[in-house]
């Protein structure tokens, strides 16, 4: 694949790899879209964007294309929006294998299908060697929030129950394993998944869901901290209740990593009022992405803005938002 502007090679590539798979909404340079959901009184349009870089671009359980679709679908879904349309833009490193691009695009198409969204517009640029690493993907998403829904971190109240939909840290651990320089068990697969259907199921069963966050970079720890800070309440989680795959737990122990900080691509944490907690867990467990749903803690009035973990030994530990990577602190 050669570096260049709008030459024939590029047009062929786009036709061949991208356009055949995605379904542009018009032949113009823009997507022209209508949806009855949007015209309902009180409905809100939700719009989000994210860029994706991951090394390696293919890993057990997914690839960069799958993450690029799921990530944006999830950003919409956790806000209570039904995802409708995506755009996809690619920065491609000169020399990138076209077969790889095909696989990435194919998995985007599959994931979009599953999530019930359409990729309606896109763009590609090829840059010189070293100016990018294989391929970077940016997706933007539009969804609609039905009237009456208001999922937001500042809705969380003391007493609300925190629930995760599945095991923690699989994506982070899978990426470590896939880098090839670690003799990690390759059984660990990324949890990468779209959570739109799961969110709809939860909201049906527990209409007063307060807020949800997908626990991507920085892990569940960072998602909880964001909520605690926005809601100005404390959050107490219970170490024993955190769902962890034994392999991930083992790897974390050896590498000294805290699974609470490992990245996820299909894990969210949500808060519901206590009387809806059981219904929310049951609804999650009825979906493939929520099989391992679990209550992990509660919002409290103590220590506003702070997340605390009750440890196995009965003590407490503050679970901080970290500035950068996990750096040792013990002198």
């Amino acid at each position, binding site marked *: 694949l050669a570096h260049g502007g709008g030459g024939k090679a590029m047009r062929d590539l786009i036709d061949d790899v991208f356009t055949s798979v995605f379904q542009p909404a018009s032949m113009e340079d823009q997507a022209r879209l209508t949806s009855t959901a949007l015209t309902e009184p009180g409905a809100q349009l939700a719009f989000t964007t994210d860029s994706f870089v991951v090394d390696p671009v293919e890993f057990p359980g997914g690839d960069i294309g799958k993450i690029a679709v799921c990530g944006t679908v999830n950003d919409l879904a956790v806000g209570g929006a039904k995802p409708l349309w995506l755009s996809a833009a690619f920065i491609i490193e000169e020399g990138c294998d076209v077969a790889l691009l095909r696989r990435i695009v194919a998995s985007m198409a599959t994931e979009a299908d599953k999530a019930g969204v359409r990729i309606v517009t896109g763009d590609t640029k090829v840059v010189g060697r070293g100016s990018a690493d294989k391929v970077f993907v940016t997706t933007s998403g539009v969804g609609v929030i039905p009237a009456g829904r208001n999922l937001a971190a500042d809705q969380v109240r003391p007493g609300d129950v925190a629930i995760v939909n599945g095991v923690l840290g699989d994506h982070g651990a899978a990426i*470590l394993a896939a880098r090839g320089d670690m003799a990690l068990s390759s059984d660990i697969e990324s949890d990468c998944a779209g959570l739109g259907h799961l969110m709809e199921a939860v909201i049906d069963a527990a209409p007063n869901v307060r807020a949800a966050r997908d626990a991507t970079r920085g892990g569940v720890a960072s998602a909880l901290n964001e909520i605690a800070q926005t809601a100005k309440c404390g959050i107490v989680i219970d170490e024993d209740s955190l769902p962890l795959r034994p392999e991930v737990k083992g790897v974390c122990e050896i590498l000294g990593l805290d699974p609470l900080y490992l990245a996820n691509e299909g894990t969210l944490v949500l808060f519901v009022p206590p009387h809806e907690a059981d219904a929310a867990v049951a609804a999650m467990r009825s979906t493939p992405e929520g099989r391992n749903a679990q209550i992990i803690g509660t919002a409290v009035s103590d220590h506003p803005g702070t997340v605390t973990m009750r440890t196995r030994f009965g003590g407490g530990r503050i679970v901080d938002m970290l500035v950068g990577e*996990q750096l040792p602190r013990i002198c």
Partner: protein
Amino acid sequence: FSDHSNLMSFGFTIRIRGQVQGVGFRPFVYQLALDFGAAGTVQNDAEGVLIYIYCKEIDAFLRALETRCPPLAQIDTIETHPIDMKHFTGFEILESGNAGAETRVTPDAATCVDCVDEITTDGRRRGYAFTNCTNCGPRFTILKNLPYDRAKTSMAHFEMCPACAAEYADPSDRRFHAQPIACPNCGPKLAMSPASDDPLRDAVRRLRAGEIVAIKGLGGFHIACDATNADAVAKLRERKRRPTKPFALMGSLSCIRRYASVSPDETARLQDPAAPIVLLHSEGTALPESIAPGFHELGWMLPYTPLHHLLLRDVGRPLVMTSGNLSGEPQVIGNEEAAQKLGDIADAILLHDRDIVRRLDDSVERETAHGPMILRRARGRVPGTLQLPPGFEDAPDVVAYGAHLKSAICLTKNGQALLSHHLGDLDDPLTWDEFVKADADYAALFDHAPEAVACDLHPDYRSSRHASDTGLPCIEVQHHHAHLASCLAENMWPRDGGRVAGIILDGLGLCDDGTVWGGEVLIGDYQEFERYAWLDQAHLPGGDAANREPWRNLLARLLKADLDPAAHDVLADKPIGLLQQAMDAGVNAPLSSSAGRLFDAMAAALGFDGAQSFEGEAAMQLEAWARKAPAQEAGGSYGLRVPLEGGAIIDTDLWAEVMHDRDAGVSIEAMAMRFHTGVAQSFAAVARHVVKTGRAQAVALSGGCFQNALLLDLMIEALGDVPVLLQTKVPANDGGLALGQALVAMARLEAK
């Protein structure tokens, strides 16, 4: 009045600064003035004590002020000025001029001998557990806010009976203005849970029977049991979920002497009004091994409240007195909190109705051949202030927020530094509350409005975040520069005193290059420093996990020394391959020059396996082994390559020699000793060279590794004739860090 000039020469104002309020200083001056036949007045004010005096022997009077001053008083400075003064005919104690005039409160003090006499002989305070006087008793732990006055303490709701009130008002009485004065008629009372008619007797009975009793003390609850009863100690360990961390002990001096050797210096330290826990070498009758498994030193303290005296007298045995808390949490101070948290640990709780306002752990100290060593600075030591070195008189007021694990904060004002009590691990939510409270609390108590704040470079220390949240100008100080400055400060090293070579052997602290330091020779002063030499860096496989599990450091050091077969041999059951890859790939394995982790690696090489059950366990074990090295084997040292002109101190040969000795069957005690000697000699050689070549004026020793008294000894010996500065007033560990941060910040602010 005819000879005016003569009158002038006998009239003086005397201004006394230091710890002179609430310690019986005014009655002392009053008595002294009467002895000298002098006339005038004495009063407390915002700066300390102010005397107007007409005295014909002023020089002798001033000498007597210093030599005969009350036990708890500490005079920093005395200024005298002649004044024109009328010839008063008497001497008078004046009440404080205005509210807020009394600015100082002294640390809590152990029960004085007079009060001990009083509770053990006939009289109205016989057997009374809350007896105190101007020379002893609670102070800071019962204080809500200043001025230090009964109404501002948790004694406020106990109304003095006429007998106590009379003592309180009588300048010739030992209880003149003793704010917590009390007697059985009017003061606090003991209680037992489950209830008992005679709480003291019940507690004694239970302790003698091998039960565990929680006891409300001065700065918090203790959990006690009979230290001679191995079953009781084992039960306490199990209930407190504290498998190996040594327990502190309490006994009378004669009792302690049955179990430990006590030198005159150690006796004096035990008997200090601060009544710290003092580490003493075990000798004589053995106590159950489970009190401090594997250790030849035990932490002892004397009874320091009347309640302790009465208990120990009747129990007749030494007591384990461990802090009353749940694992990792701060000590419990409230009665309800005690019932809730200590109820499952203790069989009964001995408590009382005088609230503990401030939580203060017992201080932990030791005597070395080179003076005192402060390991934990808390009850009895705070809020004592330290004078700032020359050159900082007019520096801006700052507050420094210290480290993360052994946190303490430091305020500076008026040429003085106030280092807070040991606060502890900021990952613990309750300790974090304490930290935030202490910040507000000390600021209010000392009417402190800092111009700037100081903190560590580490962005993820909670103390660093707290600093940036203040919104004040924030000076970030490299961890080991702060250790160096802390040592300089307590030694009164002048601000323009020139550069010193700091041997900083420590756990770890972040540097702005993203690596982690901890075994450095720094050259610098308060303001600036450079890194002259350092322990060759190795990975910390697993980050903080390398602190919990010493073997990780051994793995890193052996692999770095290309001793892969040795690594596979010694660490056969460990996930070597995976960690090797993590180190190569840079996955949670930062490079570090930490000396603490080097000691951990050595402990692992000598058989310390698994995880440490408390901080510093492996290094303490290594020191204990080295001390047991038989004299004929203890010679020699492991080689570290010493770069006299600066650079990395290479440990490759050391590990080859260790592995060689291991195969040759050399005892672990001898190997531990050779290791200590090697480390001391190598760092000493570099620092000595720096001084000898005129690039530094002296050597300063700081960092957590210097809690190791053997290392300190060997280091000082190896340094020979160069001037050495030690930490004897504040901890060399992170507990002293805030002092150094404050001084660095002040120096930098002034330099602008």
